[in-house]
C-alpha cells in the first residue's frame, strides 16, 4: 500500500512541476517524472512476493512462481511512448528558443506581441 502512495506522490510531483514551472525544459522534466511514476505504478501492480522473472528456466532447473508478465509488456510500450513525447516536446522547445531567445514562458508571452 505505501509503495502505491509513494508512487502517487511522485506522480503528483511531476504534474506539479509541469503545471507550475515557467521554464520550458522544466515543464518537460516534470512530464518525464510523471511518466516515470505511471510506469512504476504499472509494474508495482504486477509484482509477486518471492516471484521469479518471467523467463522460462532451462528444462533442468526449478521453475518458481512467475511475476505477472502482462504489465512488463505494457510498460515497455509506455516507456517508448514517453520517449517519443519527450523528444517531440524537446524539439519544439528548441525551435521556440531559436525564435524567442528564451525558455521562459512569461517572456515568450510578452514577446508574442
Amino acid at each position, binding site marked *: 500500500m505505501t509503495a502505491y502512495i509513494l508512487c502517487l506522490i511522485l506522480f503528483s510531483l511531476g504534474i*506539479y*512541476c509541469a503545471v507550475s514551472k515557467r521554464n520550458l525544459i522544466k515543464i518537460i522534466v516534470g512530464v518525464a517524472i510523471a511518466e516515470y511514476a505511471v510506469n512504476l505504478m504499472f509494474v508495482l501492480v504486477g509484482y509477486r512476493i518471492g516471484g521469479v522473472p518471467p523467463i522460462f528456466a532451462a528444462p533442468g532447473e526449478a521453475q518458481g512462481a512467475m511475476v505477472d508478465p502482462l504489465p512488463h509488456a505494457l510498460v*515497455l510500450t509506455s516507456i517508448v511512448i514517453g520517449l517519443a513525447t*519527450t523528444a517531440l516536446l524537446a*524539439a519544439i522547445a528548441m525551435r521556440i528558443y531559436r525564435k524567442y531567445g528564451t525558455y521562459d514562458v512569461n517572456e515568450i508571452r510578452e514577446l508574442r506581441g
Partner: protein
Amino acid sequence: MIALYILLSMMILGALVAIEVRSLISSVVAVGAVGLGLSLVFLLLKAPDVALTQLVVEIIAVIILIRATIRRQLPGSPVSARPYGVLLGLGFAVLLVLVSLPALQEIPQLGHPYMRVAETYVENGLRDTGATNVVASVILDYRAYDTLGEATVLFTAVMGVMAVLRNRGLKGGEEG
C-alpha cells in the same frame, strides 16, 4: 521490500531536486538520476526486460534534453513559479492521494497480483509461441498489435521532429 521503499524515497528526493534546482543542466541530470533509480526498482521488482529498456531509453532521453540545454546562454530558471500553478499543483497532489486511498485499499495488495488473464500467458506461452521469454511472446505474438501501434508512435514522433525542425516552414518564409 525495504530496499524498494528506500529507492522510492530516493527517487522522490531526486524528483524534488530536479524540480527546485535553479540551473537547467543539473535539473536534467537529476531527472537522469531518477530514471536510473527507476531502472533499479524495476530490477528489484523482477522485471529485467523493463529495467534494460528503461535504462537505455533514459540515456537517450537525457542526451536529447542536454542537447536542448547546452551551448545556450541560459539564465537560471527564475525561482518564483507562477503562483496560480503552485496552488494548482499542490492542491492536485493532496486531492489525488486522498481520493485514491479507498481505491488503493481495494486493488490487490503489493505482491499478490490476480493474474487471471496473465495465467494463460505463463502456462501455454512456450507451447503457443515457442519463445522462452514470456514478455517477448506477449509483446510480439499475443499482443503484437500493441507493439505495431507503439512502433508507429515512435515513427510519428521522428516525423514530427523532422517537421518541426526543418529549416523553412513556408515557401519563401524566413529561415530558422
